[in-house]
């Protein structure tokens, strides 16, 4: 099925795509669909080393149904949703701050969200409402983004942005450590630490249900303000003189990023670097106009995170956490970006 999707999609796109952008979007949708299909039918399981769903369906249809609906579907849906939100918010923050190094993880939004979620765990509020966890994450992410914007201002230099991100990450991590340090129950500590590493495995459909509305609302807010990001390339004054409502733009980008990242992190833990890497991969395809980078970044983020989650399942040995893998791959990319931009940094 995955091979089929991948093979026929480019043919379909030839009819629709008139511009490079549409072609890129069609290819990226095909890629995400292929990733989702592969994620639904391939996996690791406790019974067989590699659980190939069609084979299992032939021998044990009930087990296959359970695995499909209760394990594969939520896992795939979360990988797609969270990958989409990370790619999209990365691109939106880069456009908004006019800085190609902005990213939910680097600017502290993810660790703020993690802190918010950890506090929910810590104070034992988890039972209060199914939405309390994403709300905690959203509150943390919004607070971090608001402080970042307050600290760095509009169009921060690379140095200011990174320093503000370092400070915010340090503060959020310190408070998270404090919560862990004071946690009465060592098992809770272990659980939180493991959750913090970032993963979409062992999540149920209820996790999808609690995160999806916020991720979709946040993403929609960002996508709707996409066009206003373009004139910002010439500075805030020019953008305002061209009719961009800066107050509303700040609200939708920061608010949308807070909603999407906060809810995502609350469910998956910390998954870094997708938001940094993806827009850079997308720009050679669609150009540098911030509005054109948004949707393709979301799509590529969804595809990449789903493929990464697939790789995690298929790698031999103990299953690695998704956040560990994205960090292992993303950090060298970040270093490369710095190397390339060294003249701007000095």
């Amino acid at each position, binding site marked *: 099925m995955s091979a089929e999707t991948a093979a026929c999609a480019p043919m379909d796109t030839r009819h629709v795509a008139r511009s490079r952008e549409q072609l890129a979007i069609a290819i990226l949708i095909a890629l995400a669909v292929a990733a989702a299909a592969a994620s639904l039918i391939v996996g690791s399981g406790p019974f067989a080393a590699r659980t190939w769903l069609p084979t299992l369906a032939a021998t044990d249809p009930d087990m296959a149904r359970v695995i499909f609906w209760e394990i594969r579907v939520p896992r795939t849906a979360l990988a797609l949703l969270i990958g989409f939100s990370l790619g999209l918010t990365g691109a939106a923050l880069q456009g908004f701050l006019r800085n190609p190094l902005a990213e939910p993880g680097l600017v502290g939004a993810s660790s703020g969200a993690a802190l918010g979620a950890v506090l929910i765990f810590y104070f034992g509020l988890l039972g209060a409402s199914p939405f309390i966890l994403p709300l905690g994450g959203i509150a943390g992410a919004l607070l971090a983004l608001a402080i970042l914007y307050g600290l760095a201002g509009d169009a921060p230099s690379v140095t200011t942005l990174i320093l503000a991100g370092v400070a915010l990450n340090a503060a959020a991590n310190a408070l998270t450590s404090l919560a862990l340090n004071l946690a009465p129950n060592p098992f809770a500590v272990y659980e939180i630490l493991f959750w913090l590493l970032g993963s979409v495995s062992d999540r149920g459909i209820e996790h999808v249900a609690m995160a999806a509305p916020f991720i979709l609302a946040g993403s929609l807010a960002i996508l709707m303000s996409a066009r206003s990001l*373009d004139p910002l390339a010439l500075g805030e004054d020019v953008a305002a003189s061209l009719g*961009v409502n800066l107050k509303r733009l700040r609200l939708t980008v920061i608010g949308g990023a807070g909603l999407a990242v906060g809810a995502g992190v609350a469910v998956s833990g910390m998954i870094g670097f997708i938001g940094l890497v993806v827009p850079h991969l997308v720009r050679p395809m669609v150009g540098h106009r911030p509005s054109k980078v948004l949707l393709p970044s979301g799509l590529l983020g969804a595809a990449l995170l789903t493929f990464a989650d697939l790789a995690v399942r298929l790698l031999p040995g103990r299953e690695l956490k998704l956040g560990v893998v994205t960090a292992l791959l993303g950090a060298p990319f970040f270093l490369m970006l710095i190397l390339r931009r060294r003249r701007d940094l000095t």
Partner: protein
Amino acid sequence: MSGLRVRNLTVDIAGRRLLDGVTFAVARSEMVALVGPNGAGKTTCLKSILGLIPCKAEQIEVAGRAFGALAPRERARLAAYLPQARTVAWPLSVRSVVALGRHPHQRESDAAEAARAMRSLEAVGLAGFAERDARTLSGGELALTLLARALVVEAPLLLADEPVASLDLAHQVAVMEHLRAIARAGGSVLTVLHDLSLAARFCDRVLLLDRGRIVASGTPAAVLADRAMDAAYGVDLARGEIEGVPVVVVRTGIRPASAA
């Protein structure tokens, strides 16, 4: 009908009065220079007219319409702004930078937008640069590109803040000639200038701003002859005329600006 009418414009920021009851008008087909020493309030004046900084005014009227009451996009279609800073955040092509000027207008097809951008680039003589990365341009080319970006807005009023700062002589004249062409085509241009000879050579009228007040206004010859110039700039000026254009030359900087 005047292109811009400003009455009693006052700006207070952090307890400091930056503009104090500024009143002037720019007619259609007129190009007016706003001159004055650093810190006189020239940029503040442009920005407050555009609504970029809070201000109080009895009247700000652009093309006969009360500017403050309009929606941001309507305002943007009436007044184009060319700020002093020439920044382009991404490696965008020259043509797409220019096309950003169409933002306040009803969205057109990409082709129509590109065609307008090309016409604007042709007008400033940069048609050959359309596909160049704007961040690789020289200072003069970038200034002309951003001027084309302001032209493509097709607004009846253009507010330009030191459009010739840090440009060589040829580019200075090129920019000034384009601004004057806008005025001759029926537009209104208000431009901040530091070069008084350019103001005298290209502008119909000059406004002299000093510490937030307009202290002299009129034809270039009249304002440049006014002793208020010496006081505002804190220098002793020698005056003359070359080929019919009034010029001033600094004789000495003897008189320090009176402490305000």
